[in-house]
């Protein structure tokens, strides 16, 4: 049995009882990577030497009887769009191939304070644009449940590495579903926090009004511990919210009696596979059995979310990615005759097709004469989508539906048509547009591939999401299954 089949709290206890050392945990990680990484391809960079030095140091402190926090010594993987000081950070793009960050993202500082051990940096779709990891400039990560299938994206490496037992847990980022969708495809737990819950300082920006960093873990309890460690207002991110960070683990009471669940009919309708629909209905039965009540509701503007999202996220991306111009960092084209040509050649050589496609769409929708018809229109539709959620949350505690319309698809299956690829995210995108938190937890299998249950909560009410998710998890066995690699 892998050490990473244990929970955070069990490993913590075993470290303190001296049944286990931090070095054992780090060994477990790199041994497993040695065994399965050629199949999974989750990592872009490993940090083995420093991880081993750090493990030794932490073991010496444990030996001296030092007390430690819950995450002390636990091996973590970090998505490669989160900057880590002196540890290569590429965003899975050629344009940042040799980028060596000079500071730590706030979440990386918080991990250092919690004294987790960073095992390495995880693959993703280039600049987080994609739903399959096929847009990485370096490698296509595989789904550990069936390596012919995608792990999802953009945090595909973050979800696959946890599912494959290469790390205990990981950090991902979610702009339109990029934590929840790969978590669903890989059968793990992934949470997108409320916008503003976690600092974005040092997260290489894709769409600043939508991006959030969040935890990917094997269990709901572990997820709650990791979110607590990375949350909080940050003077370096003026969009981080000055709200209290509760003990999320305290919310895991197992009690969902009287919990009011809304099930949007749009989330079980057209385009949603029978397998996904049935697994959600079965999950609702489980929650009903625990004393929760559910009713069908409507989020009437759901069908407009995808179009609004692509205009808004691409517009923000086109502005955010201006900084990759070959001047201060990253790739620079050789032999350009003047500055403008240098910019153009650098960006033509450094960015992949999907990134270019979105920069073009975003630049177009922000350009003079089109701004009102596209960008501003989409911002207004965003208001309608946000109001849909407010109306439902006036009467209900959580919203439940599938995380994705189908289980994972085959590598190469959706690469020809960008719009088909984007349709994977129709159930996760509205959550980012409204800024509310959402989780995906395992709720079934279809042909050996995992399915995810999405639980959406009110602004800053991750606690109720965790309470619901944990009650369901404890009543089911899905989280106890592991892929055979």
């Amino acid at each position, binding site marked *: 049995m892998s050490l990473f089949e244990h929970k955070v709290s069990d490993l913590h206890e075993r470290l303190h009882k001296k049944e286990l050392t931090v070095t054992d945990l780090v060994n477990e990680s790199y041994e497993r990577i040695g065994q399965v990484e050629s199949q999974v391809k989750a990592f872009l960079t490993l940090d083995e030497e420093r991880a081993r030095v750090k493990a030794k140091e932490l073991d010496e402190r444990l030996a001296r009887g030092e007390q430690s926090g819950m995450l002390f010594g636990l091996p973590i993987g970090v998505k490669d769009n989160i900057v880590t000081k002196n540890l290569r950070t590429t965003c899975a793009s050629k344009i940042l191939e040799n980028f060596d960050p*000079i500071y730590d993202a706030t979440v990386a500082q918080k991990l250092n304070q919690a004294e987790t051990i960073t095992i390495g940096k995880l693959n993703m779709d280039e600049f987080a644009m994609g739903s399959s990891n096929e847009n990485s400039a370096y490698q296509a990560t595989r789904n550990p449940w069936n390596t012919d299938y995608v792990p999802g994206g953009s945090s595909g490496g973050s979800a696959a590495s946890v599912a494959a037992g290469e790390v205990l847990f990981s950090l991902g980022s979610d702009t339109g579903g990029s934590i929840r969708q790969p978590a669903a495809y890989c059968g793990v737990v992934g949470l997108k926090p409320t916008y503003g819950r976690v600092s974005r300082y040092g997260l290489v920006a894709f769409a600043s*009004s939508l991006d959030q960093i969040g935890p990917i873990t094997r269990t709901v309890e572990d997820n709650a511990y990791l979110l607590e460690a990375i949350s909080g207002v940050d003077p370096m991110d003026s969009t981080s919210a000055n709200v209290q960070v509760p003990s999320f683990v305290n919310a895991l009471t197992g009690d969902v009696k009287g919990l009011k669940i809304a099930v949007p009919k749009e989330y079980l309708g057209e385009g949603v596979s029978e397998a996904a629909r049935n697994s959600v209905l079965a999950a609702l039965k489980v929650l009903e059995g625990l004393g929760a009540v559910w009713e069908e509701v409507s989020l009437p503007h759901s069908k407009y979310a995808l*179009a609004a999202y692509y205009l808004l996220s691409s517009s923000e991306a086109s502005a955010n990615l201006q900084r990759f111009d070959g001047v201060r960092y990253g790739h620079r084209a050789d032999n350009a005759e*003047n500055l403008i040509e240098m910019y153009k050649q650098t960006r033509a050589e450094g960015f992949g097709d999907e990134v270019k496609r979105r920069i073009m769409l975003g*630049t*177009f929708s922000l350009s003079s004469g089109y701004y009102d018809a596209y960008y*501003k229109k989409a911002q207004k539709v965003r208001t309608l989508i946000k109001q849909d959620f407010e109306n439902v949350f006036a009467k209900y505690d959580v919203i439940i539906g599938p995380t994705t319309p189908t289980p994972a698809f085959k590598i190469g299956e959706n690469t020809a048509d960008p719009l088909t690829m984007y349709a994977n995210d129709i159930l996760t995108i509205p959550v980012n547009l409204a800024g509310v938190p959402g989780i995906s937890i395992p709720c079934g299998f279809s042909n050996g591939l995992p399915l995810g249950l999405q639980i959406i909560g009110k602004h800053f009410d991750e606690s109720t999401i965790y309470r619901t998710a944990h009650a369901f998890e404890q009543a089911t066995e899905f989280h106890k299954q592991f892929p055979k690699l």
Partner: protein
Amino acid sequence: MSRISMEQVKHVAHLARLGITEQEAEKMQKELDLMISFAELLNELDTEEVKPTFHVLDMKNVMREDIPQKGLPIEEVLRNAPDSKDGHIRVPSIMEK
């Protein structure tokens, strides 16, 4: 007939400082047309009276005390620059010859 002309595609690429070949421009014309026609689904909605959402939380003008802080050391800042000299980043000629 594409909603977007080749001139527009090239103009947008220039605004985005993205070098594109003739072949790429043709491909982008098709893709942009597809995505923009998809986005026009939003025109079904009457949003005349709706205010745009720029920020999902009710936060504005987040200020801090204006206290000077030490910046990063210059050699660190220049470490990732493709070309630098005497503490400055060096770029190709800005003025047309």
